[in-house]
């Protein structure tokens, strides 16, 4: 062996390393959703929701501060998520208004035209709020997915306002989608009046106008046992943010309920609210609909329960979304792919069969055509496959159905390097050169070609990587790894084997090629 010893050791290390990484393949190779079944969702966060919320917040703040400072105005409205309009102001109070805005709405630019002031959200703040909304949505969704007990979920930001969710093995897609999408905006508000059948009846005492500190909320047609309209305090006593934990339980009628515990701060507020309002009803509002409005019977400090008309599953789902917190903004599904596990299993069987048949045919062909040198190529091909699997396990790359096709294609293309080399060697032999001279020269001449042709294929595959998601990406990954591995096996390892065979004999007159 002599000077080639390091090559053998390197090859051995690479192969043993690859086997170690990839064995047993059933556990080590991550299968894509198209092979193991599961759910792929692309969703969009309606980031304008977050801006809208911010605008409403500022409006409330300004209304309060204007009242406090006796600034006159007729109304403050939100024109769009990024614009607020203050109308009917008195220009003599301009400096007071400016002070208020600069102090309490300093994230907004403003311009005054006549009696109107236009506030626009500063672009960098808008951007920040949007980004926060997406990040928070990712955290919330991750929490919910974890609660569902999905193994190896993928939850990633995808572009500016999209989230990619991949859930292997999910077989009840509708439930999962509902849980993810549920905004779970929980509010507990004191009931002033209700439930009654019409809105007008609620406003009778207020000359038909909704008082500024109250609002009308409808009951939830599915979850509430009583239907109708409620007039409730606008400011919530407790919101989902104050909830520390939520669990499913049963009430005295053996109906499912959701028991919750409050955070320290939330508990203090709740204690105050309940102690001041014993005997009055408290509306439990989920996503803007009243679920129930139980009477406050005693002072509650840190624990409460949500009653309503729930199935056990609905109660469980509600507990999950409450535990993981509210979504900062609405969510829309742009893309959904649910693949049943039976389909994946079928694909695996067929894909494996195609790979094995290809491997055998290509190997047989190489040995038939190039004899012992062909055997050399076969060894290179087997090593290529082992390295491919090892590298895929190492990078935790997913094997998809097109990925299997990529493996099959690699089998076909990897021998190309061997063919190029062998043909060059044959040419040299035909010219009457000795075996010892022909082999290295064949390798040397073929090398440039191999490098150029493989690099261009890799360039094409990289564009594929950029373009594709999921299955297609899996194809590009196996193709790239396969080609790089073939450079090592077909050039480096093959050469090493040739050198070993040639150096083991004193005189070489013929080469089996």
């Amino acid at each position, binding site marked *: 062996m002599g000077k080639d010893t390091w090559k053998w050791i390197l090859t051995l290390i690479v192969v043993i390393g690859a086997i170690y990484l990839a064995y047993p393949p059933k556990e080590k190779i991550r299968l894509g959703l198209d092979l193991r079944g599961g759910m792929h969702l692309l969703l969009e966060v309606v980031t304008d929701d977050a801006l809208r919320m911010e605008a409403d917040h500022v409006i409330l703040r300004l209304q309060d501060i204007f009242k406090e400072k006796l600034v006159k105005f007729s109304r403050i409205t939100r024109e769009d998520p990024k614009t607020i309009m203050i109308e009917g102001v008195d220009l003599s109070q301009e400096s007071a208004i400016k002070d208020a805005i600069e102090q309490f709405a300093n994230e907004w630019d403003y311009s005054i035209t006549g009696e109107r002031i236009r506030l626009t959200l500063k672009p960098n703040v808008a951007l920040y709020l949007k980004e926060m909304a997406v990040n928070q949505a990712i955290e919330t969704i991750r929490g919910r997915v974890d609660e569902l007990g999905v193994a190896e979920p993928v939850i990633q930001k995808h572009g500016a306002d999209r989230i990619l969710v991949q859930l292997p093995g999910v077989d009840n897609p509708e439930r999962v989608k509902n849980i993810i999408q549920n905004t779970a905006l929980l509010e507990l508000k004191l009931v002033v009046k209700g439930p009654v059948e019409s809105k007008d009846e609620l406003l009778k005492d207020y000359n038909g106008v909704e008082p500024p500190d109250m609002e009308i909320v409808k009951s939830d047609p599915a979850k509430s046992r009583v239907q109708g309209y409620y007039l409730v305090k606008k400011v919530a006593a407790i919101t989902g943010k104050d909830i520390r934990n939520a669990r499913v339980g049963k009430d005295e009628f053996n109906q499912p309920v959701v028991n919750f515990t409050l955070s320290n701060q939330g508990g203090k507020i709740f204690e105050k609210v309940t102690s001041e309002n014993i005997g009055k009803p408290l509306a439990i509002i989920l996503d803007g609909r009243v679920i129930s409005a139980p009477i406050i019977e005693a002072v509650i400090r840190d624990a409460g329960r949500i009653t309503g008309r729930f199935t056990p599953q609905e109660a469980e789902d509600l507990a999950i979304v409450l535990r993981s917190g509210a979504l900062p903004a609405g969510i829309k599904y742009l893309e959904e792919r649910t693949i049943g596990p039976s389909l994946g299993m079928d694909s695996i069987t067929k*894909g494996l069969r195609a790979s094995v048949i290809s491997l055998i045919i290509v190997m047989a062909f190489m040995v038939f055509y190039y004899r012992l040198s062909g055997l050399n190529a076969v060894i290179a091909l087997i090593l290529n496959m082992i390295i491919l699997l090892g590298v895929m396990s190492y990078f935790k790359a997913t094997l998809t159905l097109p990925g299997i096709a990529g493996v*099959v294609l690699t089998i076909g293309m990897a021998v190309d390097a061997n063919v190029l080399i062998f043909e060059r060697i044959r040419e040299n032999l035909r010219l009457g050169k000795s075996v010892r001279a022909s082999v290295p020269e064949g390798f040397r001449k073929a090398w440039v070609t191999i490098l150029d042709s493989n690099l261009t294929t890799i360039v094409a595959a990289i564009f594929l990587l950029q373009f594709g998601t999921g299955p297609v990406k899996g194809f590009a990954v196996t193709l790239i790894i396969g080609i790089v591995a073939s450079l090592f096996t077909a050039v480096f390892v093959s050469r090493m084997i040739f050198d070993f065979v040639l150096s083991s004999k004193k005189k070489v007159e013929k080469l089996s090629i």
Partner: protein
Amino acid sequence: MIELFKTPNINFLKYKYHAFALSGIIIICGLITYFIRGGFNYSVDFTGGILVQVSFKENISTGKVRALLADAGLGDCTIQRFGERNEYIVKVPLPERKRGELEVGTEEQNEIARKIMNVLMSAEDRKKFTEGFVNLNAISISDLKALLREKLSDEESEKVADKIVEYKNKHKGIITDFSEFEGIGIDKNIVEFLKSKTFLGSVAQTRLEAVGPRVGKELRKRASLAILWSLLAMLVYIAVRFKFQYGLSAVLTLTHDVLITLSFLLFFNREISLEVIAALLTIVGYSINDTIVIFDRVRDNLKLMKKTDLENILNTSINQTLSRTILTSLTVFFVVLILFLFGGRAINDFAFTLFVGVIEGSYSTIYQSCPYILLWEYFFGKKHYGRK
């Protein structure tokens, strides 16, 4: 030594104008087909829409499936047989909508998918369903466990549920008869219990895909861009490693490859899906491979054969690399053929595209890329063209 050719000496370039004509005809026919069909047969990935794949318990004809769906007002959907037996793909285009409202609402897609499943159910299914039986062919594993817990311990119900689901998955997601349970070692009492609570629905949903039109549009754009950018990258790479005209010829050849393959996809009414785009890009990568091997020889020979004219050098180079071209094409051809025959229906379009591409790629290397070089030198170069 087994040799395909001893020392081939075929005048390939003699037929270059025939080849141009052949390619031209194919592409023109492709274009005509494009207009006759009114465009490509895009998959749901690119058009947006809903795809439901179902597996039936018993044999059912395409016509029957179509009739069932048409009765339910789903007349404009496409129905495809998938694989060998009793499996179908139903594709529903997105409903026309107002501008600015371009999303598939999750509720809406669920509604359509549910409608399809409902229509395809047999009358017996529906009866069982209203009687309160649970469909064992549509149950989620968690629900199945919960059901079995009425009869078994937690641990045992887990085991039995896993067994049933595994069996179901191995059989296209559908169990035909309760008697099959005995074969996988499930206790008679449990089978009786399942019989009293559940029924084996006649149809099961194995795949649901819903793509919003916005995503579809973006994907189409990204696919075109990916192909264009990869072509440009090839141009730059080869222009740097060889010469500009080689890069240009290569890119023209690749464009030709893409056009020919697309024409064949049109002729056979194959669907253009994400996977097919991946196959197209692979063809770009594969065909360039071939082209470079010949260009490499041309580069060598231009130095070795200082007096020979370009056409002869090109011909010699093609001949010298002919064994390799054919051998490699053959191995790749074999594996693609195997993918096409045994890879399963799910990658059939993908394999078909590769199949066309492999054959066409070898042809184009010889009959497109080399003539392009020749034409360039004839019009602009003259240096090597007729040197004596």
